[in-house]
């Protein structure tokens, strides 16, 4: 059995970074449509908690409570998306969920770090339709991913 397993090609591993937005939903549905039901694919659904800096909290307890609540909400959302992918034909054991706090890193850095850790071949994100001013003042994760990603494909879903 061991010999057989080691000779099997590795799954193509997709990393889908999501938040609560409609564009994230579109990204998940797109992957479900394109590769759902085909063998040889695995997906990790990732949510990054955009924790504000310590200055935004009156106490450490407040910060811990905030983060805990966001983690719970993120995990609920990820589980919903996991079910979407399973319904689309992914084997349950091939769809994993991860959530983490952004900390000092930007979203794109956190996503690319995770991609590297999990050796994903493709990063998938939804495109948030930001105004030019918004992109100027706060940046764009998808633009940054396209610019900074190495050794992988980046799908930005409209």
């Amino acid at each position: 059995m061991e010999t057989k397993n080691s000779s099997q090609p590795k799954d193509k591993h997709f990393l889908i970074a999501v938040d609560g937005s409609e564009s994230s939903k579109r990204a998940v549905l797109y992957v479900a449509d394109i590769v759902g039901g085909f063998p040889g694919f695995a997906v990790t659904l990732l949510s990054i908690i955009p924790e504000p800096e310590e200055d935004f909290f009156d106490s450490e307890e407040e910060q811990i409570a905030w983060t805990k609540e966001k983690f719970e909400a993120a995990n609920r959302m990820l589980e919903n998306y996991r079910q979407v992918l399973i319904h689309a034909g992914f084997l349950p054991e091939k769809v994993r969920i991860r959530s983490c706090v952004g900390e000092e890193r930007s979203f794109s850095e956190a996503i690319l770090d995770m991609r590297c850790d999990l050796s994903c071949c493709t990063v998938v994100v939804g495109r948030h339709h930001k105004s030019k001013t918004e992109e100027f003042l706060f940046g764009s994760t998808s633009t940054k991913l396209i610019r900074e990603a190495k050794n992988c494909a980046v799908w930005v879903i409209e």
Partner: protein
Amino acid sequence: MSSGSNGYTEKDLRGMVRRWVSADRVPKRVRVKDTSDFFRVDYDDVVILGGTPYFVRNNEREGRFGLEDEPKFWVKRAIDLLTGETKVLKWVFRERFEARIGNLVFDCVRSPQKEARILELVRGRGDFMQGTTEQDSAGHPLRILDYIRGRTLSQITPLLGSDHESFFYDHFPIVLDEYIGVVEAIRFLHQSGEKHGDIRRDHLIKDETTGRYRWIDYDFNYRHGESRFAYDLFGLGNILVFITGRGDVTTNRLLTEAPGILDRLSPDDVNIVFHNRVANLKKVYPYIPKSLNRVLLHFSAGSQVYYETTEELLEDLGEAREELERR
């Protein structure tokens, strides 16, 4: 003697006050006030912080969000009764609010901890306001800031030269060098993982004793998105456009002073956020070098690429500085 007087009698304190203010300003009674509530501390009171008595003078004022000269009750000028130095005492005033720029709304906070942290970080630097932090009687960080004598960049710049052309040829190279210096100061903050948070031209005071600009007021923080420092860079860009134009060049001003130039402007030429301010200043002042104008265009509505780090901005400013020198 009140419990918080740290061993100073009222007679001691009156004697100390007399050393630093004229006789007609010495109050008949000197009250030592508890430091936990800034609303209870008034003009002519004394507060004791870290063992040092401070004689409280007026509240500081600040124009902001269109409200000119709003008193800041949590910020009071005071005299250090041991040295006679003027200080600015800044009590804890936590504020969480939504800032609005056009249709954009984002979370901001006024954080005494942040300012205390940065005061430690920039200790001894001539390009930042200096100060220390002491705990008030409730254990909150109260900042004791050195008072900076001088005018702000927004007061100084429009007075240089008799018109824009004389300003640009006679003063601007020095002004640009000073600007590069203040951007380098912000680079230091960013490299240390801190934002300024409220970069604007009246938060730069030219210290009369050193002749150098100092950044002031670091207690604001904003919730950043993908780009941690972009909002600070936006502030730096606005200052650059302001100094290059020797003030704000607004579409309204052009309408009355130079309607022909206004006709030549396109929607891409204005500030990306403030659409009534012109960013493409070369169309107004053709002698502005291309390399400098290219930097300005990064802050225009037509820009396709934006600065994300002070390093990128400084690199382009270096080129602009070189081109100015060659002229």
